[in-house]
């Protein structure tokens, strides 16, 4: 079977096949019934014609026999026939006889069967008569009838005795079944008639055009042969009205097929167009256009589908918006981790390098500036710093007011997390110097910052309630990083970046970052003193600009 890629074509084919086959079947059945009926009717007509023919022949035979019998008792005729042997006289008597009974031919046979005289001229047809005479001689009613071909014309013959008062001779009377006879038969019965003797056609009314149904009546002839009387009726003629009807049916058939095709195409379009419409919109959505809406005002299933589609598009748009917000609110790596692993509470222990950066002198600034300008300035600072952190592959864990907490090595493990963190810290210093130049142009005082970097094993994961959570890290190492940041305010250290021995140990390239040991210090909350290092350039040049104003950690 064909496989259609298009629903429209398939529907068209199905409906055409269904309609077409149903119509064709109906057409064939009708044609068959017509033919059967026509054949039955013709058979009936042929029956009638056969009966009619038999009746006519029998009637005419009886009429001739009666006429001949009556005449055979005519005393004068009898006298003449018995007393003369002149062939001319005998023939004239028979011709007179023929005229009286209205026969086609009359012949006189002796009791032995020899031909004495006959009305027809030409070669004597004694052979045609003798078998009938013999049959009559043996019949109790002394009569016989039958068919004979005389002068190429089929005749119906009757033989009756000539009595004086015993049988002294036989009289043969006959009438021809000639063209005129069959024409008359055709006129009364409407049936074509053909007379044959053996394979020879003697007479016919049949123009022989097209198909005929035939009833053949076989009659023995006196010469031992067989005469066939073919009664025929034209099937074409009988079927003509039916064929006219069939032609009309054909037009109706073709018309309804066209209508069905149009209907099928209409239905298909009604279905496929919205579907194609939906498909196009699906492609748009796949391309990221969630704002598009299917405009399909229908009550049916397709309408429901369109409504569902629109709802889906709205849902997708909503999700996209959420994703976008998520990306902005958490770092892209955390967002990806959340989307991948889900927002399940809990986490795992791993080594992470934590960076703490705090803006110094923010409180003074907040007193000088209007809150809106302050927020703009803060955002400008945070944006620059975040950029540097992310450039080094760090993840902003959270902003705590003017402070930044960033992670390296979580949620995505990084083998060079410590190097990246220190590089980010140094880069932040430089970035701040640039920012300060810009701020100076705008008439703002310069900013200063302190950065603490520590590497420790912590718990990393989703922290919070079931409704709201953050990806973050927990552990003592986080506090250490914060404390290291606080230590940058100690003037003796003369640095903006302080890191721990743990971070130094995790470095791949300890020669970079301009590291210098600052000795051991007591860190708040720690019983053991901690060995600390300064990174980057000394804070003097930067701090001189700021004026070495000590500022406490911002809240």
């Amino acid at each position, binding site marked *: 079977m064909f496989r259609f890629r298009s629903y429209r074509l398939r529907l068209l084919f199905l409906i055409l096949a269904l309609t077409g086959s149903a119509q064709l079947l109906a057409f064939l059945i009708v044609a068959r019934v017509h033919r059967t009926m026509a054949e039955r009717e013709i058979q009936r007509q042929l029956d009638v014609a056969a009966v009619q023919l038999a009746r006519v022949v029998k009637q005419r035979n009886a009429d001739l026999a009666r006429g001949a019998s009556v005449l055979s008792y005519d005393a004068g005729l009898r*006298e003449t026939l*018995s007393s003369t042997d002149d062939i001319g006289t005998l023939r004239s008597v028979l011709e007179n006889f023929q005229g009286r009974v209205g026969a086609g031919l009359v012949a006189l046979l002796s009791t032995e069967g020899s031909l004495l005289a006959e009305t027809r001229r030409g070669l004597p047809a004694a052979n045609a008569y003798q078998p009938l005479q013999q049959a009559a001689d*043996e019949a*109790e009613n*002394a009569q016989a009838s039958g068919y004979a071909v005389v002068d190429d014309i089929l005749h119906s013959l009757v033989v009756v005795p000539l009595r*004086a*008062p*015993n*049988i002294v001779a036989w009289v043969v009377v006959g009438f021809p079944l000639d063209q005129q006879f069959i024409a008359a038969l055709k006129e009364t019965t409407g049936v074509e008639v053909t007379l044959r003797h053996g394979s020879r056609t003697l007479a016919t009314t049949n123009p022989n055009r097209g198909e005929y149904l035939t009833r053949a009546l076989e009659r023995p002839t006196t010469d031992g042969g067989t005469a066939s009387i073919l009664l025929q009726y034209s099937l074409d003629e009988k079927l003509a009205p039916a064929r006219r009807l069939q032609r009309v049916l054909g037009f109706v058939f073709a018309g309804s097929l066209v209508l069905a095709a149009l209907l099928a195409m209409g239905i298909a379009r009604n279905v496929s167009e919205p579907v194609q419409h939906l498909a196009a919109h699906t492609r748009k959505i796949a391309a990221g256009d969630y704002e598009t809406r299917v405009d399909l005002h229908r009550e049916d299933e397709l309408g429901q589908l369109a409504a569902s589609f629109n709802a889906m598009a709205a849902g997708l748009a909503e999700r996209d918006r959420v994703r976008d917000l998520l990306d902005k609110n958490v770092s892209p790596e955390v967002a990806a981790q959340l989307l991948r692993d889900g927002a399940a509470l809990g986490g795992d222990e791993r080594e992470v390098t934590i960076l703490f950066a705090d803006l110094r002198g923010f409180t003074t600034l907040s007193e000088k500036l209007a809150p809106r300008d302050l927020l703009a300035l803060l955002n400008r600072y945070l944006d620059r710093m975040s950029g540097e952190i992310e450039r080094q592959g760090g993840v902003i864990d959270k902003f705590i007011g003017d402070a930044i907490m960033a992670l390296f090595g979580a949620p995505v493990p990084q083998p060079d997390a410590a190097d990246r963190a220190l590089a980010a810290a140094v880069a932040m210093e430089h970035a701040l110097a640039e920012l300060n130049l810009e701020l100076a142009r705008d008439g703002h005082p310069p900013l200063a910052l302190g950065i603490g970097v520590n590497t420790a094993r912590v718990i990393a994961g989703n922290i919070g309630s079931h409704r709201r959570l953050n990806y973050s890290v927990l552990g003592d190492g986080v506090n250490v990083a914060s404390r290291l940041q606080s230590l940058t305010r100690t003037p003796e250290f003369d640095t903006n970046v302080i890191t721990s021995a743990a971070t130094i140990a995790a470095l791949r390239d300890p020669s970079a970052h301009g590291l210098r040991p600052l000795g051991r210090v007591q860190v708040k909350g720690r019983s053991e003193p901690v060995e600390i290092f300064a990174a980057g350039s000394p804070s003097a040049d930067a701090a001189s600009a700021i004026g070495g104003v000590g500022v406490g950690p911002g809240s």
Partner: protein
Amino acid sequence: MLLGFAFAFLGVALPAAEVAFKVVDQKNQPVVDAVVSLVPLDGTAPPAVASTSPPLEIEQKRQEFIPYVTAIRAGTAIRFPNRDTVEHHAYSQSPARKFELPLYKPGRAETLLFERPGVVTVGCNIHDWMIAYVVVLSTPWLALTPAPGEITLGNVPAGRYRAEVWHPRLAKVQTREITVAPSANPAPVSFQLTLKADQRVRRAPDASGRGYR
């Protein structure tokens, strides 16, 4: 045969004998109205024709000829009395005796002499079904079979004869040579005839009916 020939040769007056006939048809049914006769073959002189008294008759009664068959020796006369209520017109076209008795009234009678041997068929011109046969023979030894189909001819001199049978439904006369001997009880001369269908015109059951079937 030799004996008969010897008697004839010697010219001795021969003793007479009886000859019995038995005639049946193809179904072994006895045949009525068969004319049996003996034609002498060795010169036996038949006796002279004796006039019968009263003469034989074929009467016309109830529009029939009665009897149907009459066998006579040539030279015998037959009367044709009309004892009917209607007129008749008896005729014959048989070569042995052609005649015509034009319409004659009841009560009249014509006497006709039959001199030539042969079968004379008598009809009536106005009643198709009426028919009678007069079988005229040259021999005096003749008889008509009655109902049992058996008849005996008496006073037949011994000698050789041609026994003949004629019947209206027989196509051809049947013959057989026999020798008559003066023995006491000779076996009957048997004939089995092949009779044709009775093709006589049936008389209509009533006068208004058809004249033939």
